[in-house]
């Protein structure tokens, strides 16, 4: 049986992030590369969101498990720090899923083509959409999130902070 590299990429890309399971690692932009070595071993390269991201070991295992389920038992997962991950690599689909899940997506850090970044005056509430929100804490339940609360509907919510 020949396995096409695109199939492998799809399977690996669909591995969910353990902490925000609505996102796949492809949505999150942490999947760098998938190759098949001469010996048939799948070589996956991922990058951490934060240096101390505690989900990385789980992600490595989940990638290996997903491949094993598809009959590809030989997998090596490599870590690459450079270039450093940025929230700009979260796909548009990923940002949509975040919003739906109740996490406000990150503001862009760099506009494509070097155009000026549109300045976001506030983080809109994920519940009621009101722009009248305030930051409770710059650091939230995971390294990548900040805590916000809506002044309008009074609901607390997470913001995926721009990095």
């Amino acid at each position: 049986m020949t396995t096409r590299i695109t199939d492998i990429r799809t399977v690996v890309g669909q591995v969910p992030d353990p902490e925000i399971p609505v996102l796949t690692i492809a949505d999150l932009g942490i999947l760098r590369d998938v190759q098949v070595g001469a010996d048939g071993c799948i070589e996956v390269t991922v990058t951490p969101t934060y240096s101390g991201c505690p989900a990385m070991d789980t992600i490595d295992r989940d990638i290996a498990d997903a491949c094993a389920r598809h009959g590809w038992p030989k997998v090596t997962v490599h870590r690459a720090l450079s270039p450093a991950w940025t929230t700009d690599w979260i796909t548009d689909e990923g940002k949509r899923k975040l919003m739906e899940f109740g996490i406000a997506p990150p503001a862009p850090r760099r506009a494509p083509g070097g155009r000026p970044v549109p300045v976001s005056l506030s983080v809109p509430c994920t519940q009621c959409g009101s722009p009248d929100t305030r930051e409770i804490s710059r650091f939230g339940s995971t390294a990548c999130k900040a805590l916000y609360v809506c002044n309008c509907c009074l609901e607390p919510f997470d913001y995926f902070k721009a990095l």
Partner: protein
Amino acid sequence: MITQPALAGYALQLGDDALVMAQRLGEWVSRAPELEEDVALANIALDLLGQARALLAYAGEMEGHGRTEDDLAYFRDEREFTNLQIAELACGDFGEAIARQLAFSGYQFELYQRLQDSRDETLAAVAAKAVKEVAYHRDHATQWTLRLGDGTEESHRRMQAGLTRVWPYTDEMFRTDPLGQALAADGRAVDAAELRPAWAEYVTAVLREATLTWPETAAAPGGGRQGLHTEQLGHLLAEMQYLARCHPGARW
């Protein structure tokens, strides 16, 4: 000539700074003035631990004796740690914690910002990743410094007392170290002395806005880079290394 042992030593210095600081910050969990602050300080500790892991793993690799990041973290004694003394100081009150965060994250920010241009690919990659995290740490410390300094009479007094307690240990951050200097000449490291002006400019502006005064304290003797430490490091290591030494080979 650049040798691998020099790179190992330099990575160990920066890794030890991050590791010891992470351990200290972890002590704040459940003791910070509010729940959000427990979470914030734990998050900062986690970032630092991640940086420490990358740096210690690289130090072990450059050293070439097969030591892993865990070997370096858990099986070295106090005199073998080369962290700056500011990282090991006991927690003190929240004013001291924020004073140290302002000083230390400000130092790390200037360091990593320059180190991301290192000719050494690993150091450059670690720094490019870390500088974005440390920018948040510095901002966190800045916001608290403003809030406490320009807050109530009591918060101002304690923030100023925290600065006075921590400031003697800031001088050591900017002392030229032979390892750093040699590697800097080759474009692989940053001479710590270069960081002082930018650091002082940033901190001065924050203190002024917070209505606080730059403490005129004498510099502590230092010596952390040579393995000389205050009595407080031993206590920290005892707690951090206890489990790994009692149960060699334990995995968690």
